[in-house]
């Protein structure tokens, strides 16, 4: 996470070690700090990590391969519903997480390929419209099928469990010291996020990553240098969807309940905004974007309500409206001040040491 450390103003440049320690400390201690304020905040952090995973997955499609996807949340839904079917009393199956999560990822990847095939020849606006439609179709299906319980959704999902111990019960360390379930979820999700970062980072610098970068910059030229653009694009959709599917499964386990409401177009747009806001194509940026844009609305919610009460004696603006307002404002200011995102992507796909002339780079 050196990139994040480098991004801290002043400290990052002059005391890189201190900056790294600060970032690492914050990441590790965040739930403890948040718990001291209130459990709501730990819950917010948990959700933020799920958004980080979503943003990382979407970045693969949008940032690396340059394929605009407005229906990404559909893969999250596929993952979440897979969990709901295979780990809840709904149909009475209770598979362990290490079976359900890969299955959810596989189904999501399959959905990614299914979406990928018809849109192979589309670019830009047209691609956006079709993917948007795809996202809506999945949501509306979930809301109208009887196996999914329609709009009521499915509840009492199993939580993450390991050797018969359920994470949602918390961890009784000693008689009067118990680690909160929400805190445990944080660390569990953190592991998945770190795993995702490692995998995505390797992908980015692989032949596959270079192929995606080529398609993003010029598809015809990519074909002309021997890249199988069809397979590469399908792979981008499938890989991106995989991360969506895994985080969807985690979401199901965390929430204990899924319904179509969680997978609206607005969510797709929110995740896309995180990617664009943070810096398309740059992992550090995407992570910061996802954290910032999932935490800020919550902070705002807790400030805005009492503030409005105090100032006007009543609530004029609903927090949900404020969230949209904030996302829009964030985008506008970003376009004005940092058009390539908070932490813009480096032009090169390669590790610095891969190039002979890195010293001349400046």
């Amino acid at each position, binding site marked *: 996470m050196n990139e994040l450390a480098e991004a801290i103003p002043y400290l990052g440049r002059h005391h890189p070690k201190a900056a790294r320690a600060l970032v690492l400390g914050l990441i590790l201690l965040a739930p403890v700090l948040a718990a001291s304020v209130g459990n709501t905040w730990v819950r917010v952090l948990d959700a933020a990590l799920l958004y980080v995973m979503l943003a990382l997955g979407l970045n693969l499609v949008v940032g690396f391969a340059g394929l605009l996807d407005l229906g990404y949340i559909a893969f999250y839904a596929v993952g979440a519903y897979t969990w709901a079917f295979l780990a809840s009393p709904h149909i009475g199956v209770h598979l362990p997480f290490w079976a359900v999560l890969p299955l959810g990822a596989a189904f999501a990847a399959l959905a990614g390929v299914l979406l990928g095939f018809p849109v192979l020849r589309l670019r830009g606006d047209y691609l956006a419209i079709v993917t948007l439609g795809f996202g809506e179709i999945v949501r509306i299906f979930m809301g109208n099928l009887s196996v999914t319980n329609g709009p009521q959704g499915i509840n009492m999902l199993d939580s993450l469990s390991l050797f018969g111990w359920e994470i949602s019960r918390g961890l009784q360390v000693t008689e009067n010291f118990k680690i909160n379930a929400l805190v445990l979820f944080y660390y569990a999700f953190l592991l998945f996020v770190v795993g995702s970062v490692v995998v995505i980072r390797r992908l980015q610098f692989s032949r596959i990553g270079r*192929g995606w970068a080529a398609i993003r*910059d010029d598809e015809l030229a990519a*074909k002309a*240098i021997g890249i199988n653009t069809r397979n590469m694009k399908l792979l981008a959709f499938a890989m991106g969807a995989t991360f969506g599917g895994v985080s969807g499964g985690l979401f199901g386990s965390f929430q204990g309940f899924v319904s179509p409401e969680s997978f609206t177009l607005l969510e797709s747009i929110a995740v896309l905004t995180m990617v664009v806001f943070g810096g398309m194509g740059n992992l550090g940026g995407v992570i910061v974007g996802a954290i910032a844009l999932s935490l800020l609305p919550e902070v705002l919610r807790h400030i805005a309500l009492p503030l409005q009460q105090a100032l006007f004696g009543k609530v004029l603006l609903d927090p949900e409206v404020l969230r949209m307002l904030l996302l829009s404002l964030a985008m506008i200011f970003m376009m004005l001040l940092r058009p390539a995102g908070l932490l813009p992507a480096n032009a*090169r796909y390669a590790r610095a040491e891969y*190039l002979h002339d890195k010293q001349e780079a400046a």
Partner: protein
Amino acid sequence: MPTEQSAPILELQDVRIRYGQIEAVKGISLQLHRGELVCLIGANGAGKTSTLNAIAGTLPIASGELRYQGQSITTQPAHLRVRQGVALVPEGRGIFTRLTVEENLRMGAYTRHEKQAVEADLERVYSMLPRVKERLAQVAGTLSGGEQQMVAIGRALLSRPKLLLLDEPSMGLAPLIVEKIFEVVQTVVKEGVTILLVEQNANLALEFAQRGYVMDGGLITITGSGDELLRDPRVRSAYLGETEETP
């Protein structure tokens, strides 16, 4: 044409290309022999770029046959043709604007796995394109048009092509730069690479090419050696765009 007797490296037989209802190429046949520099000239919309893209495999053909090194490649996808030595430098250069110059060049070797040979080829390209070598770490999108064209050609060379397809390398460039690019093209021909060059700058192309084909309205109308075509009054008018059929 010393290689006339040998089997052609590339052969097109009655190739037609359609965009929906519109037929852009209406049945053309042409041949390229190993080591030749052949140009394909004609006005805008004559079907030159479509023909080139069909040979590279980035555009499907409606009917006819493409043969490369004696084998039919009509239905072979583009990425497999690259492996067999067909490289296209697309119209408008088509470089990867967000990658650096060196990354662009290395991308040319995407299909190759022999590391040492790639490094050697990279050095060879550097010596051929000294201006490009000075800018290796620069983001390719910030290069001048001429430099971008050089990068595009260099990138194509890194795939070790046997047949190089150049689509209007002179487009939008100053005469001095165009001359430099044609010098590079000649060096490449000397190394034994067969080149099919599409150009609107017919004068220049015919001066360098051994043979030429003139395309008009989707058909090959005239063919001959470079000198013959240069003197042909019909070529001069086609090149000037005075024919009725041109859109």
